[in-house]
C-alpha cells in the first residue's frame, strides 16, 4: 500500500480583477476552482489540459509561489498552507519545481557551479568541502560533462539548459518535483532525451513527479496516473491506461481525438468542438463543458457534476465528472449536431 505524499483538498485559486471607476475588485478569474487530488509516493501524476485550464496555477499554488485563495495542501503529512514563509522555504528542499524555460529561472550571470552550489547552500544539504564532488556527480547524473562546470547558461543549448534546471532541482535531494511544461519548448529529439532522463532519475532516486503538460503524447509516456482539467475543474482522473484506452468524459474524448497521430494509415474519427474555451471569469454554470459538449442537456446547464466512478464501466480509481457516463457509454445518448 503506497502512501499519499501530496494531498490537495478543495484548492481554490482566484485572481481578482480590478475595474470600474474606483479600480475596485469587480470579479475573479477562477483559475482553479475547488479541486482535490493526491499524489502517491513514487508515482507520476500528470495534469493535462489546454491553456487557461488552471494546470500551471495548480502547481504554483501547491508551492505557494502564488498564495492560494483557499483549500488544504498536505505534503508528507505537513500542512503547507499553515507554514510560515521561512518554514515553507525549508520545505521547498523536498518539493522542487522545473519550469518550461529554465533560462528564465536561472541567473544568466552564474556558472553551472554557482547555480548548483547556491541551491545547496540555501538548503544547507551538502557541506562546502563536499560540494565540488556533488556538483560533478549531479552533472554526470543529468548527462552534462564535468568540463562544463564553469560555463554560463547561454553557452548551453535548450536541452542542456533544461538539464541544468533538473540538476538544480536534484541538488537538494527532493522527494518530489513538479515539472511545469518542462519539455514543451524542446525539439522532439531533445525532448525524448530529457523524458528518458526524468524516467531514469525517478527509478534511481525514488522521486515523485507532478507532471504538468499540454502534450498528451508526453503524458502517456511519463505518467502512472493522469488528471484532466477544464476551466479550473477536474473533469477526469484515472490510471494512464484507463484514461487513454477508456476515457469517459466527453472532454477527454475530444482532447484525445483532436491530437494528430503521426501515422497516415490511422484514420480515426475526430470530434471537432465548436467555439473556444469560455472565460474563467464567468465560467458556465453547471458543468463547465456544457457550452461545447455534444451531449449537453438542461441538467448539465444547471447541475455541477461530481467526480464519480462506475464499477462496471471504469477501472478502480477512475473517476469522471459527467452526469451521463452510462448513457453515453450505452449509446442511449447520441451527440447532437
Amino acid at each position, binding site marked *: 500500500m503506497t502512501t499519499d505524499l501530496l494531498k490537495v483538498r478543495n484548492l481554490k485559486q482566484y485572481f481578482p480583477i480590478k475595474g470600474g471607476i474606483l479600480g475596485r475588485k469587480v470579479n475573479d478569474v477562477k483559475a482553479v476552482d475547488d479541486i482535490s487530488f493526491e499524489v502517491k509516493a513514487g508515482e507520476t501524476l500528470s495534469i493535462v489540459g*489546454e*491553456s487557461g485550464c488552471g494546470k500551471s496555477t495548480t502547481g504554483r499554488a501547491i508551492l505557494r509561489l502564488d498564495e492560494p485563495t483557499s483549500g488544504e495542501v498536505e505534503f508528507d503529512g505537513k500542512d503547507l498552507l499553515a507554514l510560515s514563509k521561512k518554514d515553507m522555504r525549508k520545505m521547498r528542499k523536498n518539493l522542487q519545481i522545473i519550469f518550461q524555460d529554465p533560462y528564465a529561472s536561472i541567473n544568466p550571470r552564474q556558472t553551472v557551479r554557482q547555480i548548483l552550489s547556491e541551491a545547496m547552500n540555501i538548503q544547507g544539504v551538502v557541506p562546502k568541502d563536499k560540494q565540488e564532488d556533488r556538483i560533478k556527480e549531479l552533472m554526470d547524473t543529468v*548527462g552534462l560533462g564535468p568540463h562544463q562546470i564553469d560555463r554560463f547558461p547561454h553557452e548551453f*543549448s535548450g*536541452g*542542456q539548459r533544461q538539464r541544468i534546471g533538473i540538476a538544480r532541482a536534484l541538488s537538494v535531494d527532493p522527494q518530489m518535483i513538479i515539472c511545469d511544461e518542462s519539455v514543451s519548448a524542446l*525539439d*522532439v*529529439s*531533445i*525532448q*525524448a*532525451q530529457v*523524458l*528518458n*532522463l526524468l*524516467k*531514469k532519475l525517478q527509478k534511481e532516486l525514488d522521486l515523485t513527479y507532478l507532471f504538468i503538460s*499540454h*502534450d*498528451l*503524447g*508526453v*503524458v*502517456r*509516456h*511519463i505518467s502512472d496516473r493522469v488528471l484532466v482539467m477544464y476551466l479550473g475543474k477536474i473533469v477526469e482522473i484515472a490510471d494512464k*491506461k484507463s484514461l*487513454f484506452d477508456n476515457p469517459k468524459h466527453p472532454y477527454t474524448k*475530444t*482532447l*484525445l*481525438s*483532436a*491530437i*494528430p*497521430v*503521426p*501515422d*497516415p*494509415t*490511422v484514420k480515426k474519427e*475526430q470530434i*471537432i*468542438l465548436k*467555439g*473556444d*474555451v469560455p472565460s474563467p471569469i464567468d465560467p458556465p454554470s453547471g458543468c463547465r463543458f456544457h457550452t461545447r459538449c455534444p451531449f449537453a442537456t438542461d441538467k448539465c446547464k444547471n447541475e455541477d457534476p461530481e467526480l464519480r466512478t462506475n464499477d462496471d464501466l471504469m477501472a478502480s480509481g477512475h473517476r469522471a465528472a459527467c452526469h451521463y457516463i452510462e448513457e453515453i457509454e450505452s449509446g442511449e445518448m447520441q451527440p447532437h449536431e
Partner: protein
Amino acid sequence: MTTTNSIIKVDDLQTSFFTHKGEIKAVDGVHFDVPAGKTLGLVGESGSGKSITSLSIMRLIESPGKIKGGSITFNGEDLLAKSEAEMRDIRGNQISMIFQEPMTSLNPVYTIGDQIAEAYQIHQGKTKKEALQKAVDMLELVGIPSPKARVKAYPHELSGGMRQRAMIAIALACNPQLLVADEPTTALDVTIQAQILRLINRLQDELGMSMLLITHDLGVVAETCDYVAVMYAGKIVEYADVNTLFSNPKHPYTVGLLKSLPRHDIDQEELEVIKGMVPRPDELPEGCRFAPRCPFATDLCRERLPDLEDLGEGNQVRCWIHTDQWNGPEVNVKDDYRSAEST
C-alpha cells in the same frame, strides 16, 4: 519529384546570413517541388532552415540575410529574377502566407476588417467598401461567428483560434494558388488546432490551392500532407509521399525523429533518442551533417556529403546507406535504429 505538374519548384536554393562571425548558411542547396493542388509538408526541428526556406519563397528575407543562389519557379517563372514590384503583385495575391503566432501577426491598431480588406484592395483594385464587404464574406468563410460585427473588431478582442482564422482570411482573400503556412497551429491548443487544420483542409479543397506546410509536428504532417520533405541543418535529407515516409522511412534522421516521438495512441516502453544535438549553423560538420548523431555513420559519412538520391516513384534520400558506395555493414535503417546512448 517525378510529378509532372508542380505549382512551385525550388531548385538549389541557398539563403545565408552574413554576420560579423561570417556567413551562416541557413538554407544550403534545397530542392523540392509542391505538386499542384497538393500539400507538401516541410518538416524539421528548430534551426533546420525550414522557416527561412518559406520566407525565401516569399522573398521576405531581411538583412543581414540574403538569397545567394538557386531558383524558385512559380507558374513557369523564376521568382528570384523578379523585381520587388513584381514580387509585391504576387505576394498576398498568388502566393499567400500565414504565420505561427496569431497573437502577434495581426496589426494591433487596425480592425480585422481593415486588415483583410487591405490585400483585396491592393491586388483586385476594388474600393474600400467592396473590400470590406469581401472581408465580411471571408470571415464567414473561415467560420468566424457574426462576421458583420467581427469585421470591426480589433485583434486583441479575439481569441488565438479566431485570430488564426482571421489570418487565414487575409491570406485567402485573393484566392491564391499557393498557401505557405509556417507552423500555423503550433501556438494553438489541440482542440483549436483540430478546428484550424480541418478548416485549412476544407478551404484547400474548395479553392483548389496548393499548400506548403512548414511544421515540426509529425502528427500534423501525417494528417494533412500528401508529400513530405524532411530538412536537417539546411538541407533536405528525405522526400517522399506521406505514406511511404511514415511506413518506410529511409534516412536515419527521419527514423530517429519518428522513434523519439512520444505518442498518445500507443504504449512505448522507452523512447529512442537521437543522441547529441543539431549542429550550430556556423559549425556544420564536414561530411553528412547528420553523421555526428547517426548510429550508422562510417568514415565515408564523416568525410563526404551524400547527394539526394532518387529511389524511384519520386522518393529521394540523402544518405550513403542507400548508395552503391556504402561500405559499412548491411543495415535496415528502420529496424536497426538504436540510439547509442539512452539519455
